[in-house]
Each structure stands twice: as C-alpha cells, then as structure tokens.
C-alpha cells in the first residue's frame, strides 16, 4: 500500500482483473502439461518421419492402442496405467517392427502419397480391430489420483496431468540421451541426416529403420498409457491425435526431438489459453491457423534438421 493512493484491492474491477489473470495462468499451466504430453506423441511421429521419411498416419492409432492396452491391464489386473508402461513398451516395439516389415518396407521406394494411403489403410484396420474387440463405446479408468488437484493460488493443477507431463519429460529425456549418447542412437541420427553416407560407413540401414519404427510406436504407446488416468478413450481417438502431431512436427521441424518439445508446448498452450479465454470451438481454428502460417513462413520448422 502506497500512502496517498486509495486501496483498490477489494474492488470489483480488481477482482475481475485478478480472475482474468488466474484464467490465463490456468490456461498456461494446463497448456504446458498437455503440451508435454503432445510432445511425446509428436516425438515418435517425428522420429519415424525424420529417419525414414515416412508419414505415419496411423500414429494416432498407436497412441490409442496404448490407451486400450492400459485400459485392459487396468481392468483385468488392476494395474495402474503408469505401471502398464512396462508391458506396453515391448508390445509396441514388436508391433511397430512388424508393421514396418509388412507395410512400410515394401513401399519405401514409392512416392509419398503411397505411404499416406497405406498408413490410412492401417489406421482403418486398427480402428476396426479395436471396435471388434472392445466395441465402439468410450472407456475410462479410475485411479486414486484421477480427479486430484493441487491448488497454487487461484490455479489448480491436475495431479494426473502433472504426473503425465513429468513422465513425458522423463521419456523424452531418455530418448534424447539414447539418440545423442549411445552408439546406436548416433547411427539412427546418421541415417536420418545422411542415409547414403551412413550406409557407406557400414551402418545397417534396415536394422535402424526397424528400430526407429519400433521406438516411434513405443513412444506413442507410452503416451497412451500416460493419458489414460484422466482421459476417456474411444476407437476414433486416433485421428485428432495424429493431426495434432502433424501440426507440432511442422512447427518444430521434421525429425527434431527438441522441435517436437517446442512445438508441443506451443500448441498445448495456444489451445488451452484460447479455450479458456475465447471458446473451445475457436481453439481448433487457432491451431490450424498456426499450422498454415508456419507452412507459409518456414515449412521446415523452427528447429530444422541440421
């Protein structure tokens, strides 16, 4: 309180201003948490894209598979979704490698539209297999922390999302370490940047591709487990997920993990804040506008592959 100035802190105007600031802060906080999770989804997508130049339209369905795996394990064995990650990783790696062998490898030489159609077909197949096994209804899990929240001033942080965001960071960190600190990771990056030279140095391109696809699928599966505590999943959850991944990868740059992180945060925050301040319906338009602007300004993304 400054002498000579009236104390405005209790007035309606101050209260409304305070509430609006809280609203924006809430949007930013939720946006950061969701953004980290989106980044995880996008990281798998961008890795597959960067290493073997394949646009995997079924990537969102890999996430959805992770969700359903977590759901089944949760319902059958009472496993917490985070614990299910241990099972989901090997399953998704094997699944990813199999998909690569059956579908992606045969079309490696063909133009990009061929991949798109093939992965679209895969999307269709996965979606309907899930419907066949689980039915078309929405599924959700209840964990002890599903609706728990931590209050920080006027902002409330959902514990489930906080845990999810933290897990994403850990996994992304692990991926980063793998790519930059291990020999095989360096091989993967070499294939992404200079496939011919990499082969010349004796790196087995095939082995790298299998692994990359498997890891990409595993990233998606982990993301699926992470969101299960607070989200409701249904068989059509794949398409919105892959669209978001596409936008993030465009913003962040093909093949770049830091780019996926950056893009994820940008999109997460943009979506959340717009949703809070204007309207949720408008948030979609904002995200797509960001995409179009990025494509016109710098299609290779902010963190272009160097």
């Amino acid at each position, binding site marked *: 309180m400054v002498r000579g100035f009236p104390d405005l802190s209790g007035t309606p105007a101050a209260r*409304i201003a305070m*509430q*609006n600031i*809280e*609203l924006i802060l*809430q*949007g930013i906080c*939720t946006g950061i948490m*969701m953004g980290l999770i989106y980044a995880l989804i996008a990281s798998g997508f961008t890795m597959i894209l960067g290493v073997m130049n394949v646009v995997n339209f079924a990537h969102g369905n890999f996430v959805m598979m992770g969700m359903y795996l977590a759901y089944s394990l949760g319902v059958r064995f009472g496993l917490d979704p985070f614990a299910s990650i241990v099972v989901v990783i090997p399953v998704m790696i094997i699944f990813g490698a199999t998909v690569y062998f059956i579908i992606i490898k045969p079309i490696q030489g063909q133009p990009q539209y061929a991949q798109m159609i093939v992965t679209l077909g895969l999307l269709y197949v996965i979606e309907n297999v899930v*419907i066949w096994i689980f*039915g*078309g*209804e*929405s*599924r*959700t899990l*209840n964990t002890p922390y*599903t*609706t*728990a*929240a931590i*209050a920080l001033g006027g902002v*409330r942080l*959902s514990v489930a999302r906080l845990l999810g965001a933290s897990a994403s960071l850990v996994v992304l960190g692990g991926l980063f370490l793998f790519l930059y600190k291990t020999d095989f990771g360096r091989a993967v990056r070499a294939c992404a940047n200079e496939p011919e030279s990499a082969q010349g140095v004796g790196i087995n391109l095939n082995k790298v591709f299998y692994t990359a696809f498997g890891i990409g699928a595993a990233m998606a599966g982990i993301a699926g487990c992470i969101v299960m505590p*607070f*989200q*409701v999943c*249904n068989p*059509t*959850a794949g398409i*919105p997920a892959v669209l978001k991944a596409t936008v993030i990868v465009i913003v962040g740059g093909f093949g770049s993990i830091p780019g996926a992180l950056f893009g994820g945060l940008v999109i997460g925050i943009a*979506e*959340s*804040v717009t*949703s*809070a*301040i204007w*309207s*949720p*319906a408008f948030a*979609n338009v904002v995200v797509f506008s960001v995409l179009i602007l990025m494509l016109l300004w710098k299609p290779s993304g902010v963190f272009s592959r160097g």
Partner: protein
Amino acid sequence: MNHRCNAMKNGMFKCAGTLLMAALLSLVCCVESSDAAKEIKVGIVVGLTGGASSMGKHAWNSYQLIFDELNGMGGIKSMGGAKVKYMVMDHQTKADIAGSNAEKLIRDGVSVIFGANFSDAAMVASQVCQRSKIPFIDTTDGDVMITGRGFDYVFQTNPNINQLCDGALLFTQWLGKKTGKAPKKVAILNAQFATGYAGFKYFEETLPKVYDVVFKTTYPTAQQDFTGIVKNMKNLGVEYVFQFGMVADVIMITRAYKEMDFNPMGYMGVSGGHYNIDYIEGLRKDAEYTFCTSYFTSDLKVPKIKDLVAKYRNRFNLDFDATDATVANGISVLVDALERAGTDNPTKLRDALKTTNLNVGQYWYVVPDGCKFDDKNRNVKQHTVTFQVRDGKQQAVYPEGYGSIEPVFPIPPWNKR
C-alpha cells in the same frame, strides 16, 4: 492402332459390364418373395456399428424381446392373430446408408419402419418413408426437425429435444420452489452434435426468461480439456449448469468440476451422455448427485417395468435402460394402432397412428403418461423424467409420485462427499 483398339475395347467392356450388372440386379429385383399369409412385416433401422452402436444394440435387443413376446402372446388379435415379422438393418451410424436401408426394407414389403437412434439417419430414413407413404416411427431421436417438415407419415413417440428442455426447466423451477433455494445465475454447456446444439439454441431463447444466463459455450465433441470452461464458471459465480453432451465429454466435465473444486448448487444433463449407464460406471462415486432429464429410469413406479427389467436381464444380461424404454413405448404405439386399424395397410395404419391415445401401463408403455400425437405427430402426453444419481443408481425424482426418493438440493460440495 493398338492404342485405338485398346481404348475401344475398354469402352466396350464397360458397356457390356454395366449392362450385365444391370440385368443381373434387375433379375434379383424381379424375384419377389411370396407373401405369406397373415404376417405383418416391420422394418427396423438402427446403428449396430459405429458411434451410435451402444444405443443401437440396446434398441435392437428390445425390439427382439418385445416383438417376440407379442408373437408369443398371439400376435395382433384384430388381424386374426397375425404375427409380426421384424427385419433389421444396420445403418452403421451413416445417414446415407440409413436411406438405402429404408428403401431396401420398403422393397421387401414392410408396412412400417422403426428407427433410428441417430438423428441424421432418422432424417434421411424418414424422408424415404414419407416418399413411399410408409409410416416411420421414431422411438429414440430427439431432433425437432424429424417431425418439423410436415411429413404426415413420420411420428415421434419420445419427447424431442425442445420437450426435454422444457422438462428440465420445469424440474429446476419446481426444485427451487420446493427447497426454497432457487438458483439465479446459470450456465449452458453443449457439445457440437445435432440435438445438443439444437437444445442449446432453444435454451438460449427460453432460459433468459427465467434465469440469468451468465455463461454459455459450445465445445467440439473431441474436446479433452475443460479446465478453462470450469474456471470461467467459477469466476462468474455460476450456480446451476445445464449441459448437453455425449458420454465421453460429460465424464471429463464432471471430473473437471471436481479437479477445479467447482461447487454449484447442481448440474443437469439434458438427455445425451448423462443418461448413459457408462457415465456412472466411468465416474463411480463422482457421478453422485448429478441430475439428468431424460425419458426413463427403471425405478419408476410403473407396474410393467419390473417385469420387463427381469426379462431383459434374463435374455441379454444387461440393464434395461432409457433407450430400451423408448423402444417399448414405440412398439406399444404400433401394436395399439394395428389393433384399432385391423389391417397393416400403411395408409390406414397411419390414420390409426394419428388417433393414438395410450395410457402408461397399456401394452408395454412404461413412461407416464402415455402417448397422444398432436397435429405435427409429436407425442404431447408423455412427461420427461428427471433423475438424480444416488448410491450409484439413476433414481427418479420427477414427475412427483413416480419416484421413490427426494432430490438432494443444493448438492454437497466436493470436499464434503
């Protein structure tokens, strides 16, 4: 030279192929199924795959259960015990397929078609029926436009979304009077689907006459994050929320209420996701105290219900829910009309349907007060049923006299549950 021959061959193949195909298909058309004596053909168009499949499967179960019971009881007495032969088609939650389903059923000689547990499908299928002058009885859809196009062959036996909104508003006003604590500031939330949005527009006009609508918003059906919306409602001091949504998003919204510690006096779902059993299964304890205005609860004090619930569980091992009830009502209307008309001639059947005046308890009619159509073929006699989720079950609180419990209002805040 080769190229020219090739192109001509292509053209000729195409001609020949098309002619052959057309000839084959028309042969199939010409093979009429011989009309067996004393059988009433009823068509059913429901969504057994796709987004509407959970409702569709329930509906299909009820059609089977009740028509089989009807046939077991001797069929339609005024037609000499004619049995009902029911034929179902799956519209896969796609409007255009519903249209061709209806046409196929009409080709197969049905006298009436039921549908469709998906508004778009109902719109297209009912139009096909009107054109072919076959009655279409919509038992489950709430779209106002189904009976808003002046089609005299199209009937809606369940309340449409406007009627549901009126019922929800009536209940809330009654609740305020009863407890002496009426909400003043209300909010409307809805997901972008046809009936939800229609209800939203209707409430935009009618609610401000009674309450102060301080917040209203539409969200995409795939929306996952509701923290912003809830924070807005908290800031504005919203005391009561009217919601139109599907199961997935309304579960997320209720969770967001708890996360954000939003404690209004109450929140009311108007049909849609809130009346789906998955809402309670998904939320468990957190579903408690939710209000919902819909068509039915299985604890209504209507004698027929216990019997139907038991038979349904016996045969399908599922709960008899609101979708099943609407089907039961719809079939009752048809059976009554057939009995009065004494024939399955579609036009005479339509005339009989128009003069329906059924009471609850007749045939399989399980919702108060029964069925009577106005000049737009809308049922103006049936009440909407409002329930509150208590002890993990949907328990009716309105209309008065039909429920077994008193509503809890205002609902307790999250930290006191």
